[in-house]
């Protein structure tokens, strides 16, 4: 008897039901399941009695690549049901897919992602054929809410259409070939057994039909498997388990998983969304699931004090019913309910298409109704492993490392970061801190990247819940460094656009020694930089990163590719933001410091940057000439251009002379100081080196001399701020040259010294502080 192939969609309740029903009906001798074959000796671990969702977590590392893969299982996973039901009828259940470390899974974080999502053409063909916008909506209508009769035939037709003529990629072909080898081998065994009569149940109620082989795999692979399995076997016997290359480390473990993680896969990695809805559908059927979804959205919205009137609910129900009828669903499906609620409850224009219409994660700033709807679909369930489950490797790794650094006891630990051991200890402890594992906490140590402190002190704290936290964190990686890198990448993805968060994230990355770790971290960090809105904050990050990249010997972060990527991303973003800044505002020192950091990066690390010095000089010229740019930025751009072109002007075009630029800026005495401040922040040396009649000093002197008293008073505060960029010695030099220029004699230092009575100054200062305090108390001070 040939094998019975059952093509399923991973995480589909309808498919899970079909698998359970088929196993009970056929009572097969063998159930072959798409799952990592290296787990076959340990299937008992899966049957211990866990609370789902859980995942088989696999890790791999060799000299070239590291990879982590999850195979999430929930109550309604067809693979899980095949395993459970197969064992309960006494069948031999086998995982027949390649191990997760195999190159076929390269770049795949989710083993049970929808294979067809990797083939855009296949999904486009499906949607076009059925006239729907998304595969998920189509699937729900065809299978999840449709009557169960004829389900197997419909699935076959569906997956034949999905696979079509499309050629699978190399990874999928390797997997299909391996799975087909298993099918052929097991079929041969089953036939042999059937021939001898062994294992065939004598009564239909007990025992199994040993000759029957049930194959449960992703439906995308089924058509190919059928064809491959029909060919003669190249070699007899069960296929050998591929062996990882020598020197590579790999393993697979069970870890607790959550609906949130299951729902968070995006793009190619995503499977079926909305686990909470499908859990309900699996337990109570589609009608109850739809009702529950509606209720849970409304409850959530009302808890958030978002008005939901009865009239709205009536309208939503009418819409849902109408949509279900129009789409030919006997019972409202997930998208019918969601579309109905969105249509009736959203009373504004949206900034992003509804997330269930296009498999996209929720963008920041989404409509609150949409946010609650997505949250209600996703659910918050987390799985728990049975206590007898072997602990994930992270638990052992953490214990071994803690013992190695002598942190097992409760003595306080001091790490000298300049020594190898101290640094290792510090990294280990920081990684644990990042993973949220209770235990030691730091009481002293460097607070930021430029902090000259080189020792850290770690006190012991309560350790309750440490193992639980480590088991939970086991889903992030097999070793502390891997897990920390995964968490950092996740944080980079979700970090908000505030300065401290981004800088802190970067510093944590350095502290954990994760600067040369993963591409994932690199990619997310670059994306975060690329949408950061505040040049000042970016400047702080840029300055710190540049310092670490150039000089850091303590953490070993010098010349690290991660910092290099940060530098490039931050420079591009700062330049983008400053060219877009318009309007009148006072001098913003953070923004000027950011431009100074850009200048330093161009000077010290030009090879890392995509943007060239010539491009930047041209950009600076544009800003310097832009009448709508803020005065401080115009001055800073001028300074930036001066410093960049100091070694020979790449573009000897019409150069606005400093003096004439200053005169133009002085057209408005209110902005002269800001303009000078920007200029001095970027090109202090160039300005002081510039002497003679056409110099800036001469021009400013002339301009100031022409100001009326009233204008001078307006200009004064910003002017003082501008000259504060010079250290006292340089200020003295300027004063001396001023005296020379005016043809006077006298002490330059005397000119800088105030002539007012110090008592008056103190009194004025006290008064000013008083006023400030008073304004603050009444909330009247404007933020600058």
């Amino acid at each position, binding site marked *: 008897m040939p094998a019975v192939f059952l093509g399923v969609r991973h995480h589909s309740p309808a498919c899970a039901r079909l698998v359970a029903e088929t196993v009970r009906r056929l009572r097969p001798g063998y159930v072959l399941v798409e799952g990592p074959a290296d787990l076959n000796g340990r299937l008992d671990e899966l049957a211990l009695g866990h609370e789902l969702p859980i995942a088989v977590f696999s890790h791999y590392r060799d000299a070239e690549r590291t990879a982590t893969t999850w195979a999430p299982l929930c109550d309604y996973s067809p693979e899980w049901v095949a395993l459970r039901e197969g064992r309960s009828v006494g069948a031999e259940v086998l995982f027949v897919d390649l191990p997760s470390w195999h190159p076929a899974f390269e770049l795949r974080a989710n083993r049970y992602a929808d294979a067809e999502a990797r083939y855009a053409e296949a999904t486009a063909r499906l949607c076009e054929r059925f006239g729907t916008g998304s595969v998920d909506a189509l699937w729900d209508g065809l299978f999840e809410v449709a009557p169960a009769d004829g389900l197997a035939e419909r699935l076959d037709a569906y997956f034949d259409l999905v696979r079509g003529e499309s050629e699978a990629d190399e990874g999928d072909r390797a997997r299909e070939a391996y799975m087909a080898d298993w099918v052929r081998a097991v079929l041969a065994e089953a036939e042999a057994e059937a021939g001898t009569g062994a294992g065939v149940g004598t009564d239909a109620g007990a025992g199994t039909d040993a000759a029957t082989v049930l194959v449960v795999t992703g439906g995308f692979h089924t058509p190919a498997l059928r064809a491959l399995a029909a060919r003669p076997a190249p070699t007899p016997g069960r296929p050998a388990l591929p062996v990882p290359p020598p020197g590579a480390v790999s393993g697979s473990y069970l870890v607790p998983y959550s609906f949130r993680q299951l729902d968070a896969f995006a793009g190619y990695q995503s499977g079926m969304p909305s686990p909470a809805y499908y859990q309900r559908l699996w337990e109570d059927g589609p009608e109850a699931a739809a009702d529950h979804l509606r209720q849970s959205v409304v409850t959530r919205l009302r808890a958030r004090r978002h008005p939901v009137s009865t009239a709205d609910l009536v309208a939503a129900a009418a819409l849902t019913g109408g949509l279900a009828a129009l789409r030919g669903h006997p019972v409202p499906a997930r998208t019918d309910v969601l579309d109905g609620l*969105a*249509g009736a409850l959203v009373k504004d224009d949206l900034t992003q298409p509804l997330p269930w219409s*296009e498999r996209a994660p929720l963008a920041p700033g989404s409509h609150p109704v949409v946010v609650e709807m997505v949250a209600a679909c996703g659910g918050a369930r987390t799985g728990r492993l049975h206590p007898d489950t072997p602990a994930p490797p992270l638990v052992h790794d953490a214990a071994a490392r803690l013992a190695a650094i002598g942190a097992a006891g409760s003595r306080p630990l001091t790490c000298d970061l300049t020594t190898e051991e101290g640094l290792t200890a510090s990294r280990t402890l920081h990684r644990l801190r990042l993973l949220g594992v209770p235990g030691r906490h730091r009481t002293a140590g460097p607070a930021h990247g430029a902090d000259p402190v080189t020792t850290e002190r770690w006190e012991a704290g309560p350790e309750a819940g440490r193992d639980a936290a480590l088991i939970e964190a086991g889903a992030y990686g097999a070793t502390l460094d891997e897990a920390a890198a995964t968490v950092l990448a996740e944080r980079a993805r979700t970090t908000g656009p505030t300065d401290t968060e981004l800088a802190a994230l970067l510093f944590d990355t350095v502290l954990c020694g994760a600067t040369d770790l993963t591409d994932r971290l690199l990619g997310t960090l670059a994306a975060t930089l690329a949408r950061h*809105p505040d040049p000042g904050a970016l400047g702080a990050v840029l300055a710190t990163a540049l310092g670490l990249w150039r000089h850091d010997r303590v953490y070993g972060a010098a010349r690290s590719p991660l910092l290099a990527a940060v530098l490039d991303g931050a420079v591009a973003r700062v330049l*983008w933001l400053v060219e877009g800044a318009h309007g009148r505002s006072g001098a913003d020192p953070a923004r000027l410091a950011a431009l100074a950091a850009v200048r330093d990066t161009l000077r010290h690390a030009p090879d890392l940057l995509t943007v060239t010095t010539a491009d930047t000089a041209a950009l600076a010229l544009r800003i310097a000439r832009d009448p709508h740019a803020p005065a401080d930025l115009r001055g800073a751009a001028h300074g930036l251009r001066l410093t960049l072109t100091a070694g020979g002007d790449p573009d000897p075009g019409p150069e606005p002379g400093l003096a004439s630029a200053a005169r133009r800026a002085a057209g408005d005495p209110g902005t002269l100081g800001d303009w000078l401040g920007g200029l001095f922040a970027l090109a202090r040396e160039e300005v002081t080196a510039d002497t003679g009649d056409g110099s800036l000093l001469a021009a400013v002197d002339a301009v100031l001399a022409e100001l009326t008293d009233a204008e001078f008073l307006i200009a004064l505060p910003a002017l003082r701020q501008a000259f504060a960029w010079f250290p006292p010695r340089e200020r003295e030099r300027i004063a001396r040259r001023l005296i020379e220029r005016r043809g006077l004699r006298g002490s330059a230092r005397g000119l800088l010294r105030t002539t007012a009575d110090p008592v008056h100054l103190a009194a004025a200062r006290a008064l000013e502080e008083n006023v400030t305090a008073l304004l603050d108390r009444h909330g009247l001070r404007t933020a600058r």
Partner: protein
Amino acid sequence: MTTTAEEQLQRPPAEVRYAEELAALRAEDRDHRPPGWELSLRAARRFIVGDEAAGVARKFVGDPALVERALVTLATNRGLLLVGEPGTAKSLLSELIAAAVSGTSRLTVQGGAATTEDQIKYSWNYALLVSEGPSPRSLVPAPMLRGMAEGRLVRFEEITRCPLEVQDSLLSLLSERVVAIPELEGPEGMVFAKQGFNVIATANTRDRGVNEMSAALKRRFNFETVFPIPDLGTELALVEAESGHLLRRSGVTAAPDRDLLEVLVTTFRELRAGEGGDRPSAVLSTAEAVSVAHAVGLRGWYLRGEAGNAADLVASLAGTAAKDSPEDLARLRRYLEQRVARRRGPHWRAVHDARHLLAG
């Protein structure tokens, strides 16, 4: 060969342009029709999103679920409000829906600052009014009244451009589904809406804030946001097809360069997406991209006899992507200088090299 009057029109309404398709769909329609509708929901949906097997062309490139929601809303007792950026084919969608559902898209109120209540409900033929007094004969029904009396869909374009008090004249009409004409006596003084009547309004997100909508009116509408075409491939194909069509009509035989069109469409999409409120004030719709592609083709063909190159593209961009706004021009320049420089590929390179051609 004879040409009918309709063929000489620049742009005949949807029910005329697609008369054959509509007739065929009506003839084959076996599904239930909502009372007062000319087509069933499914047939109307097929008319709009297309059905290749049945030879029905796709007329609206967008999420089919949106069309479904829109149609179902119109079958309930709430109005439909299509909101979105300019140039997202809102009006086209409302025209198609009205043509499919009611067989006519001509019951249209064009909203604007000067729209008054009598352009929505009814006004009088004053000569008759003076000579005969108020009578059904002297009454001049406006689109809403006609839609109610005939049981058809009424389109209200750019509703938020109307003053609030004019918008609010729709309130009783949408909830009570009746218009009182106090001047007329007897049963003619009340016009009740027949089955099939409903309102499709469109509003432009750029105009919101000019005249916001009252909460009471919002409550009577279901909102549907129409988005620009979500994926690059579809938008590119549409721009290529439409601009090719325009170029052929302009006597240009060279087909537009696909790589260059990709640069154009990508530029439009990225500028349109903006970030943190920094979006151009000019409308960067697909329709605008088509007109730029048209201009590029014309320049290339009539100036040099070829399909148009990166320099033509940059030169044509200023007029559409920046219009008369210096801020938009600066945005465009910043994009060409900084973003384009980070792109790979010969066409991006060429556009970057031609950036100095940006006028202004």
